[in-house]
């Protein structure tokens, strides 16, 4: 009864939290789902793509812009935009690098699917521990690693002060909430337009549908794969920036793990391989987590997410929007 009371009492506030969290999950989930659509593989290293963005954001804010406290006026959008662009680019490059070294050699050799998973785990460990070594004191093959991250979390300077702007049904909406949801919607629209309208986007859809026929029709599969990874990386990069700004998280080499598996769950919930499914799944999962936390306490949020995932998959084994199961 306590649960119901809390859920009803905090309904609009938790709905806001769920939407904010869900849009971040949705953006990460896109990377999983697009790669899955094209290559039928779980990109387990995608959480590291997300992590890289938080580290780069820390570096850009504190080193390039020299931010020490909250900014106002014209400087704020410039700094935000600069951080967003750099972090997205870094994540995109990370994703493409992972594809180049951990997946392409296996793809060319026709390796079984599970070996991609292990290779992805290898890539994930390599990137995580590479960043944990980056404290300016360790070296690798005669090069001293830059002082970027190191073994302990580092606080990303707060650039934006939280202000409540207005309220909807009693739930206060802050400028950060608006920023997160606004950027997420913009990114999702851009991505959807790219995949649906452009030539390369059509290539992605063609490869997802039938790689052999697509290649016979003149689609360059390698180019499509690289584009897919890059786009997924951009989205994860933007998600990382929003995540840090929204919850004031520190940059940390192990930060990608939890958002990573939740976004993966979101992608599966929506029907993996389906872009709009990933968006829907992300929002749904964010909502479930927020309301679940209201019901039984925030430490049970994850349990609710996975319970809903299992429940949905029992009724629809290929996710909400997933229609076909590929052999």
């Amino acid at each position, binding site marked *: 009864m306590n649960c119901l009371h809390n859920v009803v009492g905090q309904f609009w506030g938790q709905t806001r939290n769920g939407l904010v969290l869900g849009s971040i999950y949705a953006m990460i989930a896109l990377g999983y789902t697009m790669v899955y659509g094209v290559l039928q593989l779980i990109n387990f290293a995608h959480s590291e793509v997300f992590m890289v963005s938080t580290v780069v954001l820390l570096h850009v804010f504190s080193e390039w812009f020299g931010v020490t406290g909250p900014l106002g006026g014209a400087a704020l959008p410039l700094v935000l935009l600069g951080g967003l662009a750099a972090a997205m680019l870094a994540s995109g490059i990370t994703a493409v690098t992972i594809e180049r070294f951990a997946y392409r050699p296996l793809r060319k050799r026709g390796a079984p699917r599970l*070996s991609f998973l292990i290779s992805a785990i*290898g890539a994930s460990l390599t990137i995580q521990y590479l960043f944990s070594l980056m404290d300016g004191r360790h070296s690798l093959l005669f090069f001293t690693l830059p002082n970027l991250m190191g073994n302990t979390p580092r606080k990303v300077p707060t650039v934006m002060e939280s202000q409540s702007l207005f309220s909807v049904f009693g739930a206060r909406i802050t400028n950060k909430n608006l920023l997160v949801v606004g950027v997420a919607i913009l990114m999702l629209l851009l991505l959807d337009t790219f995949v649906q309208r452009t030539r390369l986007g059509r290539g992605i859809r063609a490869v997802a549908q039938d790689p052999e026929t697509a290649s016979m029709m003149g689609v360059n599969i390698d180019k499509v794969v690289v584009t897919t990874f890059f786009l997924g990386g951009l989205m994860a990069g933007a998600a990382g920036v929003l995540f840090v700004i929204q919850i004031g998280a520190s940059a940390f080499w192990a930060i990608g793990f939890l958002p990573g*598996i939740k976004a993966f769950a979101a992608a599966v919930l929506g029907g*993996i391989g389906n872009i709009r499914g990933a968006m829907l799944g992300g929002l749904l999962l964010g909502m479930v987590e927020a309301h679940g936390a209201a019901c039984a306490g925030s430490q049970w949020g994850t*349990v609710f997410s996975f319970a809903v995932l299992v429940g949905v998959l029992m009724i629809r084994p290929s996710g909400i929007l997933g229609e076909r199961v590929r052999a």
Partner: protein
Amino acid sequence: MTGERGPVSLRKRVRDARATLKRQAGAALRVPFRPLGKGRDAARGWLEPRRRWAFPLLAVAAIAVAAVLPLLNTWFELPDWARRATSGAALARVGLFALFALGLNVVVGFAGLLDLGYVAFWAIGSYTAALVSGAAEYSTLVRTTEGVVPRPEWEMWMWVIILVALAVAVIAGILLGSPTLRLRGDYLAIVTLGFGEIIRVTANNLESITLGPRGIASIPHPAIEVGPINIQWGTLLDNKYYWLLLFFVVVWIVAITLLDRSRIGRAWVAIREDEVAAAAMGVPVVRMKLTAFAIGACTAGVGGVIYAQQINSISPGTFTIIQSILILTMVVIGGMGSIPGALLGSVLIVLVPEIFRGFQEYRFFYFGIALIVIMIFRPQGLLPSKRRKAELKGAVVEEQLYDAGTAGA
């Protein structure tokens, strides 16, 4: 004609047809179908004429070599890295993970069910041991009362605890397995991963039973006291834990080899290769999948009990997804569906970071690179099973055809 035949003969015809299909399914797998031949089939591999005498000898020799490993330390002057690798604690860890790898190999390698939440069953085994032995109550008492709390006597319960944990793990395996029966491949992966998280978070939050994040302490060490036999296991570093685990590993190797060569093993291959075809041929898919889950689960359950008894105190922080992923890595690196592979995988993945402890901070970085390199050069694993190898050749040919198509485009 058909009018004269009643529904009874129709039923008989269906039965005959099904029997024929079953026979053909057996033939399709290039393994003779023997309705009565469970034991005979299994025995044949072990007692092949050409190695009838060699195999038992080799097996005994291997077990003997494995058993003396922790003693090398005391007999010879070993370099530092070798001493670390042959210490009782490190070897016990190898034994524990070898047991887990054998169990997960049944689920992933034999039945082809991608399980990313295997650690759940380890946790269930460990927590069962902690709860059944009374350590949970004792820990609560110690934490809530002042002064010395007398320690109750539990030690003789070791085998009972293992049996209880086995039963609990089997039930858990069936319970967690049954919602996933309709799911395939990657959907199964995320659901099992979710179960792993659910179990861990539950153990973390359910203070009243699991004592929450602080965990349960003072779990009794195992002991055997039957008549003249009196074996007491000591602290974490006791070599006897390794020997106990080695015993279970050997038992499990024999049991799983027999299973793999039985009708159940062939059913798993059929399900792994094509579930729909297997079902059409009369393989009881649901039952076979649940069997795989249950066997995998009880293996982890036994390992979990011994782990809890050795380490003495358990907490939810141990049972993270990373452990499931490590165990899966052992199975895949060794070669899926291959028992020697699972053993080699666990030895490598536990001992290599142990040997390179000198490079403390760098070792996981290189470990990650090593995983990628191994998968590039030996995607089928280091010691692939013969059955799997034959399948992989087919896959490579397909891929070459596909590449030829791409090159032409």
